[in-house]
């Protein structure tokens, strides 16, 4: 296995990632698309029907396999750093995929639709239990801001330290503001350790 030597170090960037999570239909891919420099890409992971990760192709022709699609986008920060934004798969049975996505991530944006608050509970639980920094972004579809930030915080039983912001995932500036908030939150968490 050939690793990049010192001569080549400058030309292979460091990759970082942010996870965009939330329940089905909360606007995850919309947010990825609004800030990504490329149209969102999709990659597929093979799974057995039991929801087990296929990391070995031996014998899969005899198994019932399904695929889980991951949508992601890219922001080139500079020549040395590239940021990837990964939307989580909607189905909750693909939790193992979340683990790979979350490992080493800067943090996560949990998108919330106030009409279906409960659909975002599993995402919040996931990041809380793993100690991964996250912010909650209330996606205001068509100006559908039904609740205030405080009401959402209360309804989701969120710790005061977790930022809650209103956003429009379709809007590039709005999505940028959410990402900036998450990165600052991660930096604050790092400083507090």
């Amino acid at each position, binding site marked *: 296995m050939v690793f*990049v030597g010192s001569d080549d170090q400058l030309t292979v960037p460091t990759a970082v990632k942010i996870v965009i999570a939330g329940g089905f239909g909360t606007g995850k891919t919309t947010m990825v698309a609004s800030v990504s420099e490329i149209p969102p890409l999709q990659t597929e992971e093979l799974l057995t029907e039991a929801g087990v990760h296929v990391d070995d192709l031996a014998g899969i022709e005899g198994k019932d396999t399904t695929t889980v699609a991951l949508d992601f986008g890219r922001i080139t920060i500079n020549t040395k750093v590239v940021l990837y934004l990964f939307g989580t798969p909607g189905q909750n049975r693909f939790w193992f995929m979340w683990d790979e996505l979350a490992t080493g991530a800067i943090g996560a944006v949990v998108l919330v639709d106030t009409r279906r608050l409960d659909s975002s509970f599993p995402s919040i639980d996931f990041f809380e239990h793993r100690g991964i920094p996250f912010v909650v972004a209330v996606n205001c579809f068509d100006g559908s801001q039904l609740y205030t930030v405080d009401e959402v915080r209360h309804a989701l039983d969120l710790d005061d330290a977790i930022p809650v912001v209103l956003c429009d995932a379709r809007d590039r500036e709005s999505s940028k503001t959410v990402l900036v908030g998450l990165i600052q939150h991660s930096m604050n968490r790092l400083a507090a350790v």
Partner: protein
Amino acid sequence: MTAREDWWYDEAAGPLVRPYAMVRGRTRPNAPDLHLVTQVRASSFASDQTSLTVEHREIMALCARPLSVAEVAAYLDVPLVVVKVLLSDLIERGDVLVQNSSPQIPDRDLLQAVLDGVRGI
């Protein structure tokens, strides 16, 4: 010439070349540390490509600039597990260079660079 209605395969039949055929029955990637965002790049000293398969050559062409494993899989339109096997072949040959690091929590300097970068887009 076969009439179109005689074709037994179509979109619903899935790809004609199954994933395990594309990697010639090989199973696990030899390179263990290929994650979604691991950066790979074609070496400027790549060896003779005549013995490579079409998929390997496509990867070499894609990786003329650094890309993540996930991007290579997306552009090649094959599952991640397949692209990892193909990439590990090229890494073993020394034709593809790989970033030597597992995903780890970014430090403060890296976070600051990302913050400045996102503000600037």
